[in-house]
C-alpha cells in the first residue's frame, strides 16, 4: 500500500546532488536581467521621473515607467486579487519605502544596476502613517485618497447575546496583544522570467499560485487565459510569501516593452523585506468567565495592518481574519470586529499560519491570564471549554472532527505537565506553558487533476499543486498509486504548468494534500471504471467483476485471470486512458454576521514547553517542546513529521526573534544578519513531534497546525517562570528584562 509509508521524496537524489533546477537555474537564450527602481520614501508625490539618462547606458534595453501604460494597446496599470488598487509601477505617488517606480531590462546585471542609479526621480514627501491603530483614526494621513480613515474593510462576526454573556460572568478580563511585520525569508528569493512570442505570454515563476497569476496577467493584458502560460519550477521555500501575485505583473509588462526576449527578475535579499510581510496586528480581546472556568462571552477587535495595498487582505478578512482570532472554545456569545487598514508599509499577505498565528498569540496568552486570575490550572481551564465533536462554533458550524483536547493533552503529557518540577531559585527560573489553536482552510475553492494511464505502463498525474519542499508531489503520487493500485514507481507527476495541467486554486492554507488528494481519488475512481469498461469485453465478463491491480486488470476471486493494461489499451488501439478529477468546497460567511461555513474541516494543533529564563539577562532557553497536531489519515509519516517540526522551528523564530523594524517606514534590518531566523543552535534541547492519527479520518494538511501555539506556549511558560506577561511579539530578552525591572 502506497499510503502510510515513509517513501523518500521523488527527486531526493537530485536534491542532495544540488541538481534541482530552481528558477534562478533556468537559462533561456537572449535572457535579459531586470532591476527595480524603488521609492526611498514611505509616502511621496513623484514630481518628476526621467529615465533618459539611464537609456544612454550601454546594455540597457528597456525601461518601464507608469508613462508606458498610457500607450495605445498598453496593459492596465492596476491589479489586485480582490481590489485593483496596486499599480505595476507607481504613478504620481508612492506609498511605501521600496515601492517600484521603474524597472529596467538590460544585457547584464551591471548595466541594470548602473541604469537604476542613473534614473532621475524627484519626490515631494507627504505625511505618512505606519501602525494600523493610528492609521484607522479619521484624522490620519490618507494612504489612498479615496479611503478616508484608511479602513478599507470592516467585517463582523455576531454570535449569541454578548451583553447577556458578559452579565453572566463572574470575571471579565481584557487585554491587548500585538504582532509586528515579519519576513518569510525563504532562502530562495522571489524570481520571475517572462517572455512574449506571437502575442502570447509565458511566465516562469516561483509562485504558489500559478492559476491566480495566469488569471491576473490575462486580465492585465486583456488576453484570454490560454494566451498566458505559467510554469512553476520547484520552490526553495514559500511559507505564503510566494502566494497569489507578486512580481509577475511587473516582469511581464517589462518583457512586453522589450518585445521578444526573455526578461528575468530575481530579488536581492534586501528587496524581500519590502515585497510582502506578515500583517502588523493589534488585537483587543475581552472575555467573560464564571468562577468555575466556564467561558460566557468573548469580544475581539482586530486591526490588521495591510500595508499600502489591499492584496489578499480583504479576502482573508471575510473569513480567516474573523474565525482565526476566537479560539477553539465553546463560548455562548462571541463578537468579532476585524478591520483591514492601509498603512505606508509594504503590503502584507499570507504567512505560514496566516492570522491564526496572531489570533492564537492573543487568545492563548489571554487564556492563561484568565486561568491565573481564577487560580486555575491553564490545562484545566481549556479542558472545560474546548470544542468537542458535535459542538457548535461561533460561525454556527457543527465541528465533527474535534481533537483539540487530545492534541493539547498529548503535548502536555510529553512535557510532564502533571509532574512536579523544580522552578529554580537563583538567576535561572523554570516554567511551563501550553497552547492550542484552531485554523480554517479556504472556505471555497477548487482543485482539479488529470490521471493519464499510458500504454508503456506509466501513470501520469497532472497537477497544479506546487512543490515547495513540503513533499506534496510525493504525497500526491502516493495517493494516486494507492487509489489506482498502480505501483508508486510508475507514477509520474507533471506540472505545475497551466498549459498542461487542469485548474487548482493555490498551494496554500494547508489545502494541497487534502483538496488535490480528493481530486485524485475522484480521477482514480473514474479511471478504474473506464479501465474495467474497456477490459470487460476482452475477458468476456461484466465490468463489476474486474479489479485494477498492479499493472493490469484481474478477475475478482480469480487472480490467475489477468490482463496487462498495455494489452487492454493496445487491443482498443489507445495510447492512453485519461480521467479527470475535481474536488470543490462550498462555503463562506455572511459579511454582516460571520455566520455560515468558514472551513470544510479544521486544522488543530497544540504545543507545550518547559523553559528557563535567565533573570539577569532576560534570555529564554527552551528546554523541552512538544508539538502535537491532529493529522487525520497520514500519507507519508516521515514527511508529516518534517512538516510538524518545521512548524515548531518556524514558530520559534516568530516567537522569539523575528520582526522587521521600520523607522518612519524605513526597514532597518533588511538583511539576514540583522533579521535573524532560527539556526540549529536555537532549537529546544528536546523537541518532540506528535501526530494524532485517525485511519478513518480525512486527509489533513500539516504545514501550519502546530506553528501558532509556539509563541503563546512560550509566553505562558515565561509567565509561569517569572510572573511576567509579554503581550507584544517577538519575546526578546530585552522585553523580559524590562518587564522584570518594572519598566
Amino acid at each position, binding site marked *: 500500500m502506497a499510503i502510510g509509508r*515513509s517513501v*523518500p*521524496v521523488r527527486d*531526493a*537524489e537530485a*536534491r*542532495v*546532488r*544540488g*541538481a*534541482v*533546477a*530552481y528558477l*534562478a*537555474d533556468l537559462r533561456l537564450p537572449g535572457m535579459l536581467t531586470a532591476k527595480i527602481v524603488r521609492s526611498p520614501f514611505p509616502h511621496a508625490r513623484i514630481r518628476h521621473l526621467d529615465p533618459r539618462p539611464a537609456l544612454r547606458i550601454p546594455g540597457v534595453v528597456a525601461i518601464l515607467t507608469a508613462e508606458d501604460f498610457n500607450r495605445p494597446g498598453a496593459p492596465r496599470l492596476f491589479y489586485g486579487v480582490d481590489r485593483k488598487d496596486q499599480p505595476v509601477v507607481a504613478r504620481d505617488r508612492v506609498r511605501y519605502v521600496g515601492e517600484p517606480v521603474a524597472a529596467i531590462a538590460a544585457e547584464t546585471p551591471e548595466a541594470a544596476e548602473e541604469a537604476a542609479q542613473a534614473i532621475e526621480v524627484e519626490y515631494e514627501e507627504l505625511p505618512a502613517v505606519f501602525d494600523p491603530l493610528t492609521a484607522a483614526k479619521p484624522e490620519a494621513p490618507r494612504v489612498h485618497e479615496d479611503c478616508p480613515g484608511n479602513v478599507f474593510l470592516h467585517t463582523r462576526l455576531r454570535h449569541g447575546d454578548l451583553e447577556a454573556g458578559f452579565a453572566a460572568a463572574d470575571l471579565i478580563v481584557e487585554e491587548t496583544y500585538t504582532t509586528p511585520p515579519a519576513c518569510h*525569508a*525563504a*532562502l*530562495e*528569493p522571489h524570481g520571475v522570467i517572462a517572455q512574449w512570442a506571437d502575442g502570447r505570454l509565458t511566465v516562469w515563476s516561483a509562485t504558489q499560485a500559478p492559476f491566480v497569476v495566469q488569471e491576473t496577467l490575462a486580465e492585465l493584458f486583456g488576453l484570454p487565459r490560454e494566451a498566458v502560460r505559467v510554469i512553476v519550477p*520547484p*520552490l*526553495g*521555500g514559500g*511559507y505564503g510569501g510566494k502566494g497569489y501575485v507578486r512580481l509577475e505583473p511587473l516582469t511581464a509588462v517589462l518583457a512586453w516593452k522589450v518585445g521578444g526576449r526573455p526578461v528575468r527578475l530575481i530579488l*536581492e*535579499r534586501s528587496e524581500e523585506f519590502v515585497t510582502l510581510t506578515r500583517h502588523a496586528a493589534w488585537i483587543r480581546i475581552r472575555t467573560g468567565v464564571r468562577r468555575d472556568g466556564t467561558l460566557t462571552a468573548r469580544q475581539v477587535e482586530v486591526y490588521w495592518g495591510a500595508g499600502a495595498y489591499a492584496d489578499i487582505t480583504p479576502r482573508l478578512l471575510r473569513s480567516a481574519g474573523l474565525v482565526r482570532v476566537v479560539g477553539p472554545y465553546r463560548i455562548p456569545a462571541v463578537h468579532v470586529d476585524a478591520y483591514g487598514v492601509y498603512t505606508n508599509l509594504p503590503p502584507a499577505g499570507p504567512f505560514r499560519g496566516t492570522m491564526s498565528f496572531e489570533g492564537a498569540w492573543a487568545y492563548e496568552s489571554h487564556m492563561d491570564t484568565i486561568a491565573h486570575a481564577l487560580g486555575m490550572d491553564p490545562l484545566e481551564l481549556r479542558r472545560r471549554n474546548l470544542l468537542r465533536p458535535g459542538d457548535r462554533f461561533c460561525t454556527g458550524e457543527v465541528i465533527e472532527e474535534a481533537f483539540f483536547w487530545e492534541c493539547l493533552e498529548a503535548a502536555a503529557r510529553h512535557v510532564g505537565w502533571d509532574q512536579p518540577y523544580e522552578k529554580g531559585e537563583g538567576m535561572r527560573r523554570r516554567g511551563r506553558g501550553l497552547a492550542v489553536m484552531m485554523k480554517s482552510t479556504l472556505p471555497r475553492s477548487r482543485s482539479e487533476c488529470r490521471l493519464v494511464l499510458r500504454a508503456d505502463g506509466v501513470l501520469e498525474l497532472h497537477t497544479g499543486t506546487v512543490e*515547495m*519542499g*513540503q*513533499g506534496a508531489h510525493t504525497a500526491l503520487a502516493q495517493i494516486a498509486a494507492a487509489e489506482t493500485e498502480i505501483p508508486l514507481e510508475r507514477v509520474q507527476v507533471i506540472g505545475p504548468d497551466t498549459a498542461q495541467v487542469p485548474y487548482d486554486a493555490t498551494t496554500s492554507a494547508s489545502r494541497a494534500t487534502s483538496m488535490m488528494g480528493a481530486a485524485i481519488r475522484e480521477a482514480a475512481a473514474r479511471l478504474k471504471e473506464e479501465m474495467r469498461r474497456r477490459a470487460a469485453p476482452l475477458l468476456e465478463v461484466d465490468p463489476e467483476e474486474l479489479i485494477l491491480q498492479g499493472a493490469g486488470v484481474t478477475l475478482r476471486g480469480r487472480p490467475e485471470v489477468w490482463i496487462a493494461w498495455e494489452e487492454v489499451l493496445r487491443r482498443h488501439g489507445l495510447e492512453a486512458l485519461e480521467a479527470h478529477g475535481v474536488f470543490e468546497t462550498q462555503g463562506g460567511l455572511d459579511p454582516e454576521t460571520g455566520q455560515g461555513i468558514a472551513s470544510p474541516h479544521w486544522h488543530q494543533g497544540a504545543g507545550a514547553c518547559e523553559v528557563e529564563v535567565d533573570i539577569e539577562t532576560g534570555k529564554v532557553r527552551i528546554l523541552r517542546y512538544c508539538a502535537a497536531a491532529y493529522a487525520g489519515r497520514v500519507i507519508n509519516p*516521515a*514527511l508529516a513529521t*518534517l512538516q510538524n*517540526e*518545521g*512548524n*515548531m*522551528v*518556524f514558530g520559534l523564530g516568530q516567537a522569539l526573534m523575528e520582526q522587521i523594524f521600520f523607522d518612519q517606514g524605513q526597514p532597518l534590518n533588511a*538583511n*539576514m*544578519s540583522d533579521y535573524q*531566523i*532560527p*539556526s*540549529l*543552535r536555537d*532549537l529546544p534541547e528536546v*523537541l518532540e513531534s506528535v501526530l494524532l492519527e485517525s485511519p478513518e479520518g480525512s486527509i489533513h494538511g500539516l504545514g501550519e497546525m502546530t506553528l501558532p501555539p509556539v509563541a503563546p506556549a512560550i509566553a505562558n511558560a515565561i509567565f509561569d517562570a517569572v510572573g511576567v506577561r509579554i503581550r507584544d511579539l517577538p519575546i526578546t530578552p530585552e522585553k523580559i528584562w524590562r518587564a522584570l525591572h518594572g519598566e
Partner: protein
Amino acid sequence: MANRERFALHVNGQIHVVEAEPTRRLLDVLRADLGLTSVREGCGIGVCGACTVLMGGRPVSSCLLLVSQVHHQEIVTVEGLGGNGVLHPVQQAFIEHFAFQCAYCTPGFILSTVAMLEKEPDLDEQVLGEYLSGNLCRCGSYLHILKAVRTVARGRQHGFS
C-alpha cells in the same frame, strides 16, 4: 569590461581558467561561468550558508570570496562529491533520514558536514554547533539533518571514509 584577468580555479578536481574582473564573486563564477548551480545565493552576506563550498577542505561562503582570492585554490562543490553515479555517504544519509524539505540549503549543509567529518575526530555537540550553525534551513529540518549527520559519523567510526 575593464580589468579582466585570467584566473586558474581547481574546481572538483578540474582546472578551469576563467577571465573575470578580480572583484567578481566566487559565487557568480561558479554559478554563471562554470554552471555549478548547486551553489546558491541566499543572503549574499555570508550568513545563511546556501553558497557554501569547500576551499582546501574548509567550508567557506562563496558570496564573500572574490575570484582573485581563490586563484589556484582547491574548490569542491556538491557536484564534485561521490562520483561514477555513486552518492557520497553524507548525501546517502541525507536521503535516508529525510534531512531536507525544499533542499535549497542542502548542498551547503552537506559540504559543511563533509568538512566536519574530515577534520574532526570527535563530534560533540559543540563541534556540531560550530560547523552546522553557519547553514540555515528555513523549512526547519534541523532534527533530521542532525540524525543524518550523526549516522554518518557513527558509520565513519566503523570504518568507511
